[in-house]
């Protein structure tokens, strides 16, 4: 590394000054005084420049310097340059910040930045509008002090990626979803979206389906009543036998569809978690297995590896088990087998139905729990399905904190597994111990 030019010239100037003093000292004598004088001169000059530098750093724009070149002028020029750079960078950041502010201000979704203690650090205007936040009092306040819904407090303790719906604290009947996304060191971002409109649509849809099913049920009862009477009438002409039998079958199917629709809307509109009644699963599975065994040449076996019971609603659990077995039986050709398995796993329990049926193409597996979705429409209808069974299973299972997984291979069979978490399962051994 070589010294910059200004340092060489400065050191040169000092050397020159000292050399001059030395010469003068040799010439006139009193060397010490000459040298001291030269150094004093140098220190004085340096102090003068330091004073100028100090004033410049104090914020005086004008540089009160006599010279425009040389060591000090160069240093001051460098400081000026640095300041200019800092100023333009500051301007740039200001502009950037303003743009970020403006764009987050224009967002229709609310955003709130929270620290590790869930205190509000910053929020955008949409968040202020949706939650009624006020900058003056709410920065630094904990978010759950202002959004006090108990469900939100529980969500805040263990945030999941899918967010939570809470009633709007500002307008009656409004709904919001809040999603907490952790980032950086202990900070998190809360995204708030107004879903009032979606909730209303969903409700309208549900009400419509519920009303339509109820309204259709009464006329259908009358129709099937007459068809039943007709089919048993000995005076009915022979030619009408087949049509009437077909009408009877279709009327029965309509009744089943309506029953399933009503069940489904009931599941959707009930409180989100099922009750916790004691349900003996094995005792419930035995008659189901017996009912399907031998039907259409099927072998249905029940393998109960555990006597675990579930805490849930009996009718809904029955509906889960029955629909899954029914589903397996309908898609398994004659001579095939359906295994019903009830076993313990990871502290919880698993209910499985394994069939040797026609299977489901892989790309369609995620869709089979949609209502009225059919892998093979002709076949499903011919086997008497309503198209709602798996949708009911999915909803009822959700209400029991359970999870449905489907694995299948086309032509070889499918496995439907329902996993129930620890909190919903009671093992008899535990129960006996608890009593003792």
């Amino acid at each position, binding site marked *: 590394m070589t010294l910059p030019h200004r340092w060489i010239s400065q050191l040169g100037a000092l050397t020159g000054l000292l050399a001059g003093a030395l010469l003068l000292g040799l010439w006139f004598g009193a060397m010490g005084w000459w040298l001291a004088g030269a150094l004093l001169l140098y220190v004085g000059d340096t102090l003068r420049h330091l004073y100028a530098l100090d004033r410049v750093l104090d914020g005086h724009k004008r540089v009160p310097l006599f010279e425009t070149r040389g060591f000090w002028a160069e240093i001051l020029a460098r400081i000026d340059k640095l300041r200019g750079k800092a100023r333009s960078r500051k301007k740039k950041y200001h502009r950037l910040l303003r743009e970020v502010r403006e764009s987050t201000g224009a967002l229709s979704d609310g955003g709130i930045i929270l620290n590790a203690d869930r205190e509000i650090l910053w929020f955008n205007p949409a968040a202020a509008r949706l939650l*009624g936040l006020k900058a003056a009092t*709410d920065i630094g306040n904990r978010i759950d*002090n*202002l959004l*006090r819904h*108990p469900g939100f407090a529980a969500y805040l303790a263990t945030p999941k990626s899918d967010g939570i719906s809470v009633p709007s604290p500002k307008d009656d009947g409004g709904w919001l979803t809040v999603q907490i996304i952790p980032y950086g060191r202990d900070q998190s971002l809360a995204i708030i979206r107004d879903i009032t409109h979606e909730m209303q649509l969903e409700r309208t849809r549900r009400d419509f389906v519920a009303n339509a099913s109820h309204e259709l049920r009464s006329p259908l009862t009358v129709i099937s009543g007459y068809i039943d009477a007709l089919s048993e009438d000995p005076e009915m002409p022979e030619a009408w036998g087949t049509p009437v039998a077909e009408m009877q079958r279709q009327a029965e199917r309509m009744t089943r569809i309506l029953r399933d629709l009503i069940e489904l809307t009931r599941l959707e509109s009930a409180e989100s978690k099922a009750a916790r009644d004691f349900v003996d699963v094995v005792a419930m599975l035995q008659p189901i297995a017996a009912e399907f065994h031998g039907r259409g040449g099927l072998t249905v076996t029940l393998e109960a590896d555990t006597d675990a019971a579930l805490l849930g609603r009996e009718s809904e659990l029955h509906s889960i088990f029955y629909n899954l077995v029914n589903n397996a039986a309908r898609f398994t050709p004659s001579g095939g087998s359906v295994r019903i398995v009830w076993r313990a796993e990871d502290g919880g329990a698993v209910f499985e139905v394994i069939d040797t049926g026609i299977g489901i193409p892989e790309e369609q597996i995620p869709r089979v729990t949609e209502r009225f979705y059919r892998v093979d429409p002709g076949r499903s209808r011919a086997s008497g399905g309503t198209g709602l069974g798996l949708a009911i299973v999915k909803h009822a299972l959700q209400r029991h904190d359970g999870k449905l997984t489907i694995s299948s291979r086309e032509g070889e069979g499918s496995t439907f597994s329902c996993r129930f978490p620890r909190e919903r399962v009671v093992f008899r051994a535990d129960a006996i111990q608890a009593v003792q």
Partner: protein
Amino acid sequence: MEVEDLGHHISRRFNEDLERVRNSVLAMGGLVEEQLDRAIKALSEGDSALGLQVAEDDQKVNRMEVSIDEECSRILATRAPTAGDLRLVIAIIKTITDLERIGDEAEKIGVLAARLASVERPATNYRELRNLARHVKNMVHGALDSFARLDPKGALEVVKADDAVDDEYDSIYRQGITFMMEDPRTITRMMDLTWMARALERIGDHAKNICEYVIFMVHGKDVRHIGIADIEAEVQQGVRRTEGRS
């Protein structure tokens, strides 16, 4: 911020204790708000199961009151707070009592709603009562907001709203009497409705009390049992004093 806290309190743990108990009060408030919400929903949707569920869940509110109360006693005994901190603890102890009473009134509404679900509903679906409920709900919400923000001005707004709620209660009451005189068969239902309106009106009073504690906590002035104009004057004076100090 930590330096400031240390200057403010010798012990940071003390600050944390106060903050935690304040947060629990607001969590309890959130629970009470939800109870009230569900009780009203049980009435407007004729959902008797929900009404009974609300009545059962009142235990949760009671349990929270007991635990916050214990925490406050512990703070008083071990920390011996003074000045603003003492006012905070006193205000909290009073606030949870009122919150618990609001919970009790919500329980009452839940039980009455469950009973009313089995009788024929009027064409208006209890519009007057639902209006009253909405105002009362806003009052409770505003009271808890002003508690969270330590905002005496917000508290004053809620105190002012109480008069309107009282008027609404009076008109429901009078209307009920008219109905009962016209058709004695409605007496049972009308009595239930009047009780419910009464419970709502009481909830409004409790919300007002909470607001008075907020004003007490922030300005150190007891504003109970004085007229609204006087309360307003106290709040204004308090604001001026606070501004003068800073």
